[in-house]
């Protein structure tokens, strides 16, 4: 209790302050301290991607980031993907394509896929598969996930001015 550090980070666009111990991961702080439980834990060693977040514009596993490292940085999580205007096209496509079953990996996939589409608006199927190889899904066989991401890319392209 004595060892806590004060951290200020920009989480989903909001300046956020929290106290954490140095050994706490960003995942722990998001879930336990900040109550943002949309980011999931599947393995806690960087092999499943369920805890994917975007740190300073870069896709990372939040289980492999110390919370203290986020001082002054931006963190974007699943909670920030849908806006007041509604679901993100990826979320909408995941629903339409039935790209989730149990749903535990879904936030990680959506955060990861959004990071891809913001960088590469028109990826190939193979590119989608490569980008998402760090996200495990045990329910779907990835078929509908890949289709949803490719479908969302089309929707997002069409929406561009």
């Amino acid at each position, binding site marked *: 209790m004595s060892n806590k550090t004060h951290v200020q980070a920009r989480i989903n666009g909001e300046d956020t302050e929290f106290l954490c111990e*140095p050994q706490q991961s960003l995942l722990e702080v998001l879930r336990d301290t900040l109550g943002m439980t949309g980011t999931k834990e599947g393995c806690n060693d960087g092999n499943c991607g369920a805890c994917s977040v975007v740190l300073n514009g870069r896709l990372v596993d939040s289980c*492999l980031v110390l919370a203290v*490292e986020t001082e002054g940085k931006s963190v974007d999580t699943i909670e920030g993907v849908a806006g007041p205007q509604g679901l993100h096209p990826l979320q909408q496509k995941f629903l339409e394509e039935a790209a989730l079953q149990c749903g535990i990996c879904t936030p990680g996939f959506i955060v990861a896929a959004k990071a891809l589409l913001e960088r590469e608006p028109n990826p190939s199927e193979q590119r989608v598969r490569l980008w998402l190889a760090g996200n495990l899904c045990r329910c779907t066989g990835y078929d509908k996930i890949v289709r949803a991401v490719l479908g969302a890319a089309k929707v997002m392209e069409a929406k561009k001015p």
Partner: protein
Amino acid sequence: MRSFEYVQARTVKKAVALLAEKGEQARVLAGGTDIIVQLRAGRRQVERLVDIKGIPEANVLSYNSSRGLRLGAAVPCYRIYEDKAVARAYPGLIDAASLIGGTQIQGRATLGGNLCNAAPSADGIPPLIVLGAVCVVAGPEGIREVPVEQFCTAPGRTVLKPGEFLVSLRIPPPRPHSGAHYLRFIPRNEMDIAVAGVGASVVLDDRGERFLSARVALSSVAPTPLLVSEAEKALVGAAVADGAIQHAAEAAMAASRPINDMRGTIEQRRHLVGVLTRRALQGALKRAGKG
């Protein structure tokens, strides 16, 4: 996870001081993709983590065709492969940077960290060895340089002394008619630890007919990544042909010292060293404009 102290260093000097103060009980944090897992699993324990990502020298990524590449130890993989000039000059390095972990890992993991973690299976090390990379190490006594092939001493152990840390890597500029390639064998197509890995580099004569020089380095088949000097001997001066490549592959197989474990058997690994050495050399030749 056991508690520890987290400190950010902004200068090389400060980092050395912070590390020296705690000796064996201090460790560097760069991408964190190995150290955080090890601390959590209790495989390592530290009293202090020194974050070097704020040190300018550890963040440098600069290439020019006469001086070569200066690669900071805290530069994550994605910055390497997204840098067009670096990607053009060192495709062999990109092979490794783009297959360590998945996208998320590449957003944090560094080749410097891969080297300092000193896993026998490190994908980043064979290409650094065959590219002739040199480690720039800072410590209480100042700066010293160590060739990458001499850096790892045992699984998880390096030549770094208490208070020392890897600041950056220096890689010479690619020579004309040269090429390098890193290949590993994994059962899946990503997110896996190499059963065996081979890096190869070649420099050819102006006509592309003879090997002027060549290097072959292995991972996952010995306690540390291995530079195979016999493979070099088999190639240098030889004509670019299947025979020489085969001799190099045999030399690599003979040099390998694999073990049986959950990821593979001795026989399988030695066999794969042969296969991968051939393929890596062929890939390197192709990049050298041959094959």
